[in-house]
Structures are given as C-alpha cells and as structure tokens.
C-alpha cells in the first residue's frame, strides 16, 4: 500500500516561473489492484506518478510505503527502493538505442550485482513470456512499436517489482496493441502485482483490467472510485 498525505509539488519555487503541479493530494494506492490516473494534459498525472514511484520528492507532504515513511530518504536509499519495488514504463518507451532488446531488459538489474548468466536467463524468460524470444538479439531501433513496448514491459519486470508504473503506455499504440497491453496488465494483476497507470486514453479506463480510477485536474484529485 502506498499512502500519500497532503502532497504538494512546486516547480521553480520562489522564481517568477513558479508552478504548482500538485496541490494537497491525499491518496491511497491499494495493493494487487490496478489504478488508473485520469485527467487532461497538465492535470498533474505524470508528476503524481513520479512521486509515487520515488522518481522525485514532493515539496511537502508525506509518502508511506507499506509502514515505512520514505519522503525524506537520501537518494541512494530511494534509488534502491525504486529499483526493487517499482517497474517503470514510459510514454516514449525510453529504450536505449544501439544495444539489443536483451541488454535493454537486463539494464535495471546491472547495479544489483547479480550473476550475468542468471540475469540473462531471467531476461530471456521474460522476453519469451512476451513472445519476443526471436527478437532478443535485435537492436531496439529495428523493432516495431508493439515489440518495443513489450521490451519496455520486460525491462520493467526484470527486478520482479511489486508495483508496475506506466505513464501513457498506449499513447503510441494502435487499438489492437493497446488491447494487448491491457491484457498483459490484467495477467500481471492476476499474478499479484499492483498496477498504476496514468493515461487519458479511454481504452485504458474502460478496460476490465482497471479496478479503480482517480480523476485529476489542476493538480488536485477530483474523484477516486472503483471502475464501473
């Protein structure tokens, strides 16, 4: 469970271009469920997602992960939590070009100091699970949009995270691929993972994989409730 308490995030504080991205958000993310953050561009979805995933710190407020407060942990500890607890999928996939799909998948686990052979096997298993075994040694720039998306999913799962965070995951996918992606998320939820997606794509909110929807606007939570 992640519990946010009166979270505020201000960019360029004290400067003429000061911008309040999140203002006074209280939110609880329940485990083993899929939550979607819904709202127009600039509503604060991505900022809230990055705070939830320990990618950034709030300007004020408290974040509790399970029973542990993580708001003011030093970067090193925050990185460890991020690496071990969260798996990230980004809007642009953010794969590293010039290296193979397999290497991209293995990247988040390199700092763990795992045995290379063990790590490689796990990455290959994940690629196999996502029907990408044949593309493991292909450089990522040669992959189609759907394949790149699945490589990004495999990368998010390499450290076996409890929580999967996805920011606009279907923004660059067609209807069929978006449907496939939501089906994969449903499978992960079934396996006990917590899913957190920020999206304004109706295909995401209307998917039966989503359990809960949080509506956002102007950096505030307008409504939060179970998906219909």
């Amino acid at each position, binding site marked *: 469970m992640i519990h946010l308490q009166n979270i505020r995030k201000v960019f360029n504080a004290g400067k003429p271009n000061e911008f309040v991205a999140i203002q006074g958000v209280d939110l609880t993310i329940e485990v083993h469920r899929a939550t979607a953050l819904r709202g127009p561009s600039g509503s604060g979805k991505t900022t809230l997602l990055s705070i939830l995933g320990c990618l950034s710190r709030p300007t004020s407020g408290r974040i509790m992960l399970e029973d542990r407060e993580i708001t003011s942990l030093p970067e090193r500890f925050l*990185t460890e939590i991020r690496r071990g607890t969260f798996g990230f999928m980004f809007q642009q996939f953010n794969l590293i070009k010039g290296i193979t799909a397999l290497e991209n998948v293995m990247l988040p686990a*390199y700092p763990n100091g795992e045995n290379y052979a063990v790590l490689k096997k796990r990455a290959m298993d994940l690629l196999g699970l996502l029907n990408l075994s044949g593309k493991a040694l292909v450089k990522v720039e040669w992959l189609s949009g759907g394949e790149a998306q699945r490589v990004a999913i495999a990368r998010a799962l390499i450290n076996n995270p409890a929580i999967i965070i996805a920011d606009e995951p279907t923004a660059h996918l067609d209807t069929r691929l978006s449907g496939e992606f939501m089906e994969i998320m449903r499978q992960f939820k079934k396996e006990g993972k917590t899913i957190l997606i920020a999206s304004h794509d109706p295909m995401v909110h209307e998917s039966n994989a989503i359990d809960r929807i949080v509506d956002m606007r102007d950096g505030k939570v307008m409504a939060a409730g179970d998906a219909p």
Partner: protein
Amino acid sequence: MGVINKQRNILDFTLSSLGRRKGKNLALVVVYTFVIFLLASVMFFAHSIKKEASLILQGAPEMTVQKLVAGRQDLIPTRYVDTIRRIRGVQSVAPRLWGYYLDALSGVNFTLMANADLKDRPGEIVIGNGVSWRSGTGKGKQSIRKNDIIPFKTYDGSVLTLKVKGILPFASELVTADLILVSEADFRKIFSIPNDLTTDLVLQVGNPRELSTIAAKIKQMHPDTRQILREEILRTYDAVFDWRGGLIIVVLSCVFFSFIILAWDKATGLSGDEKREIGILKAIGWETSDILLMKFWEGAALSLSAFFMGIFLAYLHIFLGSFILFEPALKGWSVLYPHFRLTPSINAYQIATLFFLTVIPYTVATIVPSWRSATIDPDAVMRM
C-alpha cells in the same frame, strides 16, 4: 562477489556502449594513440641512447689531459707523460693521437685515430661501417671494401694512400661510424705532427676517489693543461640528449595541446542522446555512482587502449624501426648518421609519468560532465 558482478555487468554495458559511437570513439583513439606514440618515442629514444652512450663510455679512460693555448686545445708535449706517471695513484698514462679529416671527395668529416695495434703496420687502416658506406661516390652502396685503397691529402700537400685492412663491427656503430684507425706514423704524416707532440693523454687511476686529487696535482704540475673526467663526459651526454629530447617535446607539445582540446571537446561535450541515456538509467534504478562508474570505465577503456597501443607502436618505432621519424633531430654529431638499432631500455618512471599525464586527466575529464548530468532528477526522463 556481488561487487565484482556489478563491476563486470557495468563494464559489459560500457564496452557495448562504446561500439555505438564508433566514429567518435575511433577518431579519439587514433589521435590519442598518435600522441602517446610520439611522446613515448622521444622518451624511449632519449633514455636508450643515453644508456647506450654511458655503456660505451664505461670503457673510456677515466681521465683525459689536454693542453690549452689561449683557451683552446693544442697539441700536448709527450714529455708530460713521464712527469704525470710519477704522481702517486696513477696506474698508466698513454699519449693519444686523434683528429678530424675532411674528405674533399665526399665532403664528409672523418675521425682519424692512431691505433696501437697498427703501430708496426704503417700503410694500413681499419674503417668504421659508416665510412665504408658513405665515402667515395656511390652513396648507399658499400663502395669501400677490405683491401681497397683510400688516398689522404696530407698537410704538407702530398698524397698518402692507405689500404683498408678491416671494417669495424656494426654493433659499435654509434661511436665508430665515422672512425678511421691508422698507425701512429701515418697519422703524424697526414697532419704533420712532430714526434714530441700528441693530441692528448689518457690516464687510468687505481682508486676512482683519487681522481679529483690527481687532476689537481696535474693542474699544479702543468698549469697549461685541463683535465676531463669520464663522469663529466657522461654528464655532458646526458645534458645533450636531454636537451635534444626536450626540444622535440616542446615541438610535440603543440600536438599534445591540440589533442587536449580535441579530447576535452569529445569527452566533455555530452550529446543530447548521452544525456537522455543517463536520464533513462537513473529512472530505471541506476544510482549516480553507477553512472559515474560506467563513465569511468568508458574513459579508462578508451585511454588505456590508446596508451598501450601508443607505447607498443613507439617501442616498434624506436627499437625495431630505427626511429625513422626522429633520426635527424635526435642523433648524430657529424655528417655521417650511424645506422644502428638501440638496445631496448625502458624507464618505468617515464612510463608512469606519461600515464599520469594522459590517462588520468582524460578519465577524469570524461567523468566530470557525466557527474553533472548524473545528478539530474530521475523524473526528468518522464518529460522527455
């Protein structure tokens, strides 16, 4: 074990990353290698030739006594031999006859020296390898062989013909390239030197610690002489070759500074792609220290490869390739440049200096800009 695996995994990724920017990295390695090659070549050459010269001088007399007239060297009377021999501690004193002879035909200055082995064989000479190759008309061809005859124009205007009875071995060429050994009688004939005069005197001394005392006694006994110690010649050789090496280094420093500018530009200017990559790595769980480690390996891999390649090429150039690039600048006192191979001799201190002046600054230069990028907030990647 985890720490080693972590280093290995990050190194693996670094090496595959290097391959992604082939053009940039290859250009850098080529220029870097060239700079190391030039600097290491000068260092290897200067060190080896000094060592070679000092080895050769080990066999030289411990002290040479010359007569001075108005501050310039003049012929010394042979009677000085007897008075110097009487000084306690002097083992032997021998007169030496040597000088320079300009061969009008080839335009080359030869070193002529009277040799005791030829004392009873007037009319015969032994010549250095350089003399046999370069004198006469056919440059580049061995024009003078054993039993050939060389004409010498004497100082009284007549011509003296001497027969070549031997050619000095190749191994001693550094000092014997332009040398011609003649009998004492022929030497005196060529230069019109009376029998009671000689070029200088050479001394062997029993105890090297007495050298300066003996030199002072000779000076007192014959105030018109100067005493040259072997150690002084060694010091002069060192100074000369250090000076020549230094001169080359000064010239090369232009190349070196150009390289620094290039390396600084290439190493420090992180491209947009590289910055984006650092952002992604941070977002997926890499710490700032992991990224710095990766950049460290990147800089170290590049500069170490260039360093070792440069050292290897310099070794080939100096010790197997006869230092073809520096030959005219670093070697040779006279018109005849000896052709010889230096005995490989490397000074670990110099290699370490070169390492600390090239590899370390380059590696640091690659880390600094990465550190700046690596400290960005990982959420920046969410907005890319």
